[in-house]
C-alpha cells in the first residue's frame, strides 16, 4: 500500500498548472530549473512532478515571459499541488516534503 523506504528527497512532489498562454512560460521555466521533472498534459492542465523538490524561480519565468513577474502571480496558475510549500518569497517558490 505505501512504500516506507522512500525518503523525503525521493518521494514525488508536484503541481498542476492551468494551461494558458502565460503559463506556458511558467511551465518552461519549471522544466528548465528542475531537470528531473516530468510533464504530463491533461485536459486543461499541465501536471509537473519531481522527485523530492520542485522550484519555481522568478528570474527564469521573467526571462521567458519578457516582463516582470511577481511570485504572487503563481496563484493565477496553480490548480493544485502535493508536497509542502516550503518557501514562497519574492524570488522563488519551493515545494518539497519535510520528513
Amino acid at each position, binding site marked *: 500500500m505505501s512504500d516506507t523506504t522512500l525518503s523525503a528527497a525521493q*518521494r514525488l512532489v508536484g503541481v498542476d498548472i492551468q494551461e494558458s498562454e502565460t503559463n506556458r512560460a511558467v511551465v518552461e521555466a519549471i522544466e528548465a530549473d528542475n531537470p528531473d521533472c516530468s510533464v504530463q498534459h491533461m*485536459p486543461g492542465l499541465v501536471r509537473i512532478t519531481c522527485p523530492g523538490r520542485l522550484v519555481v524561480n522568478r528570474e527564469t519565468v521573467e526571462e521567458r515571459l519578457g516582463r516582470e513577474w511577481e511570485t504572487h502571480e503563481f496563484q493565477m496558475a496553480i490548480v*493544485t499541488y*502535493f508536497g509542502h510549500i516550503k518557501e*514562497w518569497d*519574492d524570488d522563488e517558490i519551493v515545494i518539497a*516534503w519535510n520528513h
Partner: protein
Amino acid sequence: MTIAPDASRSASKKTRKLPMKQRYQALTRDLDWEPSYVDPKDMFPYTEFEGIKIHDWSKWEDPFRLTVDAYAKYQAEKDKRLYAVLDGFAQGQGHLSLTDASYLNTMKLFLQGVTPLEYQAHRNFAYLARHLAGPGPRFAALCQSIDEIRHAQTEIHTLSNYNKYYSGLHNYLQQHDRVWYLSVPKSFFDDALSAGPFEFLIAIGFSFEYLLTNLLFVPFMSGASFNGDLPTMTFGFSAQSDESRHMTLGLEAIKFLLEQDEDNVPIVQEWIDKWFWRGYRVTGLVAQMLDYMLPRKVMSWKEAFELYFEQQMMQGLFQDLAFYGITPPRHVEQALSEKEILSHQVYWVLYQFSHAAAFTTSVPDDEHMAWLSATYPDTFDKYFRPLWEKERRNIAAGGRHFVRGLPQLCQVCQIPMTFTEPGDPTTIAQRVSVYEGEKFNTCSDGCQWIFEREPEKYVQAWLPVHQIYQGNCGGPTLPDVLAWYGLQDGDSGEHKGSRDDLNWQRWHAQTPTGLGAEGEQ
C-alpha cells in the same frame, strides 16, 4: 495574462516595496495585539474545550504570505477572467456545444450538492477568523472565508446560464435541505459545522481540502473541459487556484497542532480517522459521476483515486506525517479495496431512484459498457454488466424500472445501504449498533466506528427516509414528497425522452427553428 505592470510598478518597485516576508509580517502579524483589560479566555472562548493544547500561536506558518492588497488584486483578476468567459459563452449560445444534454446531470449534482457547502464553509471560516487565537491562522481563515463565498457566488452565476434552457437547476437550495441523496453532502458538512474549531480545521481544512479535494474538483473540471462546458472549467480552475491556498491552510493546521503538544497527536489521529471516512463516502457521488454521467470520459474513478489518493496521499503525505506518529486513516484499506466497485454500486442506486431526484439517468450504451469493461476488467463484466443487461431486457419489454419502496439509509453517511462486505461484492453490508435500547444501522465498519464513537451526535441525524415515514415531507404519497422536494416535470427520471433530451434533439436538428429559443416548457 492581462495584469499589465502599471506606472507605479516600474524600475523603482523593488526599492519602494518591502520584501514579501516583511510585508506579510507588517500587514498580517503586526496588526495583532495583546488584550490588556479583557481576559484572553473571554476573548477566545472556544480554543480549549476540545482538549487541544496550543502554547505558541506565532509558530503558525502561512507559506503564501498573503496580505490584503495582494489578496484583493489577484482575486479581482480571477473574477474578471471568469466573467469574460461567462459572457462569451452565453453570447455565443455555448450551451449548444456541450457533448450532450445529459452532461448537465453532473452540474445539477454539483449545484445541488456542492455549492451550498461552499456557503457553509464561508460561514465556518468566518467563525475561525474571529475565534482562533493567533493572527496568522485568523487571517488565513478570513481569506478562505471570502474565497468560499466567492465560490458559492461564481458557481451560481456560472450554472445560472444553463437554468434558462435545462431542467433540474431551478431549486437547488430547497433541494439541498430536503432531497434524500443531497442529505449525503449536507449531513457531512453539518457534522463538521457542529464540531469545535480544531476538529473543523482537521475535518474541512485538512481531510477535505488536502486529502480529498483533488478527487472532488479536478475530475469535475476536467470533465467540464472534455464535454464543452467552458464556463464550469473556467470557474473550476478559478476556484482551484484558491483551493491550493486552502490545502496549505489544512496542512499547516495539522503540522501546527502536532508540533504544539504531543497530547494533540491522538486527538488529531482520531479526527483524521473519522473525517477521512466521512469525506471518502461523499466522494462516492463523484465516482459515479466520472464513470457514468460524463458523456465523454476523462479518467475513471479508479485512475483518479490511484493518482490523487494513493500516489499523492498514501505514498507522499502520510510518509511525511509518520514523523509525528500519525498513521494512515483507519479503514483506508477498505477504501482502497473498493476502488473497482464503488462507482458501479452508487450509480446503480441513483439509476433506480432517479424518479425522485433532480437529475436524470440512463442505461449505459454499448460503447460506454465496452469502456467500463476495459477500465474495470476484474469487476464490471462479472458483477455489474449482468445488472444492466437485465435492465435492457426490462426496457425492451416496456418496463424501465424504478424502485418504488424506500431504502434503509446509513445512520452516518446517509447513503442507501448499497455497499458490500469487504472482499464480497455481492453481499450487502449492514452493521447494527444499539444505543439506549434503540437499533441504529450503518453501511460499513467505517461508519459504524464513527457512530459508536459519538452516538449521542448521530442519533440526531435527519434521515430523509425516516422523515418521510414520520410524515414530515409533504405527505404520504410519492407525488406529495416530490412536490415538497420542489421537483417539477422534466427534472427527474429517465434521460431518454426527457424534456432536456427532446429539447436537445430539436435544437440540433437540421431545421433552424428553435435555435437560441428557450426550452419548451
